């Protein structure tokens, strides 16, 4: 059977790819996190929170060219991934009593195997192992659909929305993001490049356990050469994740104790450089983002 790569087939494939890794990973991640007391959960999850926030704040623009009045309707499918280096793979944790209370380096959710602590008792020894990492990866990905509409008085609206209903073990997931971009170059009579400013807010809720929020404000610049657009920007950003669960471990807290954490992503500023290819109504993008973490982003768009 031949598969024709028509638009609906492409959209379906990418949509499925968005969901599948999350589906298989979700139960395992939840089980791992529920074993952690709040102190260790923070260290274990911090790189995940940072990567998640950095991803959400990526891929929001691919040009600074916004006309004063005109029609822009563009649907983008954007994939982004935060690079995971050695620094994101370990954190310092304190083992439970009766083990020595010195902090040791052990695996984060992106790390390898958890550190094993031993203690000699009589002629035997007892050991405790910290939770193992759950992802074996050099980048943590996310993919989102994005709709850009405008242009009204040099302004575009950008919307991200993914509603996924609860399916078996996969929890109900909702991403909503909204932002506006405004042309700055329209106020400057002679300028060889396009300049725009933007502000975005997004929220992502995964079941009852994870709620992530992100905000960014930035400035972009771009220059088009025939079908190619070079773009870049500077962006201040913040992200946070609320993690809520009932502790299922056995030590330090009573099993079933509710744990609520709010963690902030480490990425607060980024510089972006990217390249776009515009073929009539089809657009391709790729960019790199440099801040506390490095994010690469790519995608394709359809529209005017």
């Amino acid at each position, binding site marked *: 059977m031949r598969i024709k790569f028509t638009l609906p087939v492409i959209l379906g494939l990418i949509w499925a*790819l968005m969901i599948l890794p999350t589906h298989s990973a979700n139960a395992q991640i939840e089980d791992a996190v529920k074993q952690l007391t709040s102190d260790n959960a923070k260290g274990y999850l911090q790189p995940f929170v940072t990567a998640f926030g950095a991803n959400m704040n990526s891929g929001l623009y691919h040009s600074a060219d916004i006309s004063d009045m005109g029609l822009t309707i563009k649907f983008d499918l954007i994939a982004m991934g935060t690079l995971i280096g050695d620094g994101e793979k370990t954190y310092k944790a304190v083992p439970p009593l009766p083990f020595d209370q010195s902090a040791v380096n052990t695996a984060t959710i992106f790390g390898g195997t958890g550190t094993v602590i031993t203690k000699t008792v009589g002629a035997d020894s007892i050991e405790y192992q910290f939770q193992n990492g759950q992802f074996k990866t050099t980048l943590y990905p996310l993919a989102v659909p994005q709709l850009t509409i405008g242009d009204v008085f040099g302004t575009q609206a950008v919307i991200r929305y993914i509603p996924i209903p609860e399916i078996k073990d996969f929890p109900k997931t909702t991403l909503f993001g909204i932002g506006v971009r405004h042309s700055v170059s329209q106020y400057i009579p002679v300028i060889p490049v396009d300049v725009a400013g933007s502000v975005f807010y997004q929220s992502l809720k995964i079941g009852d356990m994870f709620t992530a929020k992100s905000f960014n404000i930035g400035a972009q610049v771009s220059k088009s050469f025939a079908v190619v657009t070079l773009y870049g920007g500077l962006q201040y950003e913040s992200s946070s994740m609320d993690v809520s669960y009932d502790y299922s471990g056995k030590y330090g807290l009573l099993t079933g104790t509710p744990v609520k954490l709010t963690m902030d992503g480490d990425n607060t500023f980024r510089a972006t450089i990217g390249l776009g290819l515009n073929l009539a109504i089809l657009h391709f993008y790729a960019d790199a983002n440099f801040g506390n973490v490095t994010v690469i982003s790519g995608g394709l768009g359809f529209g005017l």
Partner: protein
Amino acid sequence: MKTNLASLFIVLILTGWFLTGCEMTDNPLILDSSISASTWIDIPATPPVVAQIPPTLELDTKALREVTGDNIEKINFYNFTLTADSILTTTGTFSGYITIDDDTLAILSGLSPADIKKEHSIFSEITGVEIRNSGLGTLLHAVKTPPATPLQVKIFMAPETVAPVKFKLILKVYSQIHAKS
């Protein structure tokens, strides 16, 4: 045609990215597991002789494995704790020992219920608790290879002072289960 090829190219890149870029590890999930048993310790001021506190308690180490339905790759014991709950006397101290399947696990001397009011590991270096290798070996083996019948735990105690001692003693065994789905 060119558009379809370009679309296919992008889809393949994204497919490769998602399938190879972020896979779950094959590391086992580590799950905490515990079992416990409790009894009232009620020893009068006299006579000050060491006697078994009835009843004999049972610790079924098979139950440690019930936290998961997944394949258990490994199980390790990491703690045994004592907790004095519902302390009804405040001045008395006690001595004695705890056996597991008739092997002595810990010798207790001159402890006050208040010393273990907060959950206390027998492996913490505290005055008044000494570990015995025979009982520890039995416990370690029973956690790794659960016997068909539960471990029989006996508590022998006597008051150290003229004051009576009455509290609920909770014994707890902790392990970690390494499970693979």
